[in-house]
């Protein structure tokens, strides 16, 4: 291959990548070309050619910078915002779906709209604590810890949330900051203990439970505690799924049965509770086909 053909080949490659916005690859080819031209005695003196290649490299560099600096939160129409909210709310529970939709908006760069929506859900929604936690998460991940602290202070002053909820949110923020070595001053919410405050004044005990440890009083698991992941939660009603191959466990749950020793694990606290089996159904469709869904209604405190 002649020098001319090699140069033409590299220029073609570089320009093709550039047209596809594969800019780093384009720059790589131009650099390869520059090295080739500068090294070869037949072209190393051709100032015009070398200047042209360098100018193209600068142009590609500028495009790279422009892309790196481009906004990641473009203005999008109300219709598209609504679309995002609808497409990315998956829960069959309306209250949870509304929160998911608002969080999706924030994640897709519509931070202000998402935050507004979550603020509305804190104020008027059926699950204000859930909405408040997600609002803090949005501030922490998309804005800054200062914004989350300011939000918390506003809630504390305005008394929009109950003391129990505030205490819960405070613990949530404290744990978050502690893990990351962040120092922040949060206003006190009252004298009661976190556990007491958590449960006080809420009919639904809306803690985000991740698992339940149930101690059985009879049968093959007598005296043992078995851990189950929570598959769904709406207030104090939680569901667990037991695979069909664990028939002995499935048989231990009977409709109406009291469960007096349940260890409830949430992201920020573990507490003991009790409840009753409020439903037991076989899953007939989907990937969990054949498994059993056990609904448990936890007692309020």
């Amino acid at each position, binding site marked *: 291959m002649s020098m001319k053909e090699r140069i033409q080949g590299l220029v*073609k490659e570089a320009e093709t*990548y550039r047209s596809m*916005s594969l*800019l780093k690859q384009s720059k*790589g080819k131009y650099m390869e070309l520059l090295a080739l031209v500068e090294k070869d005695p037949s072209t190393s003196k051709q100032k015009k050619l070398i200047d042209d290649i360098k100018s193209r490299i600068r142009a590609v560099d500028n495009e790279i910078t422009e*892309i790196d600096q*481009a906004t990641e939160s473009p203005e999008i129409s109300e219709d598209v915002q609504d679309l995002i909210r609808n497409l990315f709310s998956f829960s069959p529970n309306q209250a949870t779906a509304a929160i998911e939709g608002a969080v999706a908006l924030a994640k*897709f*760069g519509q931070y202000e709209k998402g935050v507004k929506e979550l603020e509305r859900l804190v104020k008027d929604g059926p699950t204000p604590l859930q909405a408040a936690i997600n609002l803090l998460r949005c501030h922490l991940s998309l804005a800054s810890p200062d914004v989350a602290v300011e939000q918390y202070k506003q809630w504390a002053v305005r008394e929009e949330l109950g003391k129990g909820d505030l205490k819960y949110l405070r613990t949530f923020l404290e744990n978050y900051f502690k893990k990351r070595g962040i120092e922040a001053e949060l206003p006190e919410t009252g004298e009661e203990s976190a556990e007491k405050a958590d449960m006080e004044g809420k009919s639904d005990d809306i803690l985000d439970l991740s698992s339940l440890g149930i101690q059985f009083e009879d049968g093959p698991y007598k005296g043992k505690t078995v851990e189950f992941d929570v598959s769904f939660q709406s207030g104090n009603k939680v569901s667990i799924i037991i695979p069909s191959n664990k028939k002995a466990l499935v048989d231990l749950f009977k409709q109406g049965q009291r469960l007096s020793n349940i260890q409830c694990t949430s992201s920020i606290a573990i507490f003991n509770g009790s409840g009753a089996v409020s439903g037991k159904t076989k899953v007939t469709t*989907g990937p969990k086909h054949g498994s059993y869904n056990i609904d448990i209604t936890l007692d309020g405190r």
Partner: protein
Amino acid sequence: MAIFNAKDRVIECRLVFYGPGRCGKTTNLEHIFKAGKKYTQSDMVSINTKGDRTLFFDFLPMGLGKVKGCDVKLQLYTVPGQAKYSSTRKLVLKSVDGVVFVADSLEVRRQANILSLKDLQQNLAEQNMNIFKIPLVIQYNKRDLGDDGIPILPLEVLEKDLNSKLKAPSFSASAVNGKGVAETLKKSIQITLSYLNRELKWTQ
């Protein structure tokens, strides 16, 4: 997982076009939108950033009409390919029913394909989904560039890199010219609906 309304006999499922940045995911959807007007239910939604790069996702809803007595509705999505948009990819991948992995045939994108496929596997696993089980079709895009003297990877190399273990159906394509796009989509719909029938028994 797809939504199946047994009463009205409607099934709605989600297909996601995945792959490295600038591999042609959006171009695939644009061609489907133009060529399949009678199946598309509204305009295609694209949210791009500088350089026509997908920032969040592209979205194209389609109605396939009746299949085995059931009204089949499709939602086609693309993910942003750039590595930094990992959380967005995870969100778009949520509740996915089938995946089209669009690989870039360019030699210079060999590593990017491999990393993107690993990213897909990881993001599916985070949602308790298995790349070996989910309906997956692989498309080797930009095959036309070979004719222009641009170095592209031979199909055997792409198959070895990406599909030696997965054994997914694969297609050559040139999405910019529309070649291979329909075949890829058709196969993806076919295996996804068949998978969903095993899971949801929607044809019964």
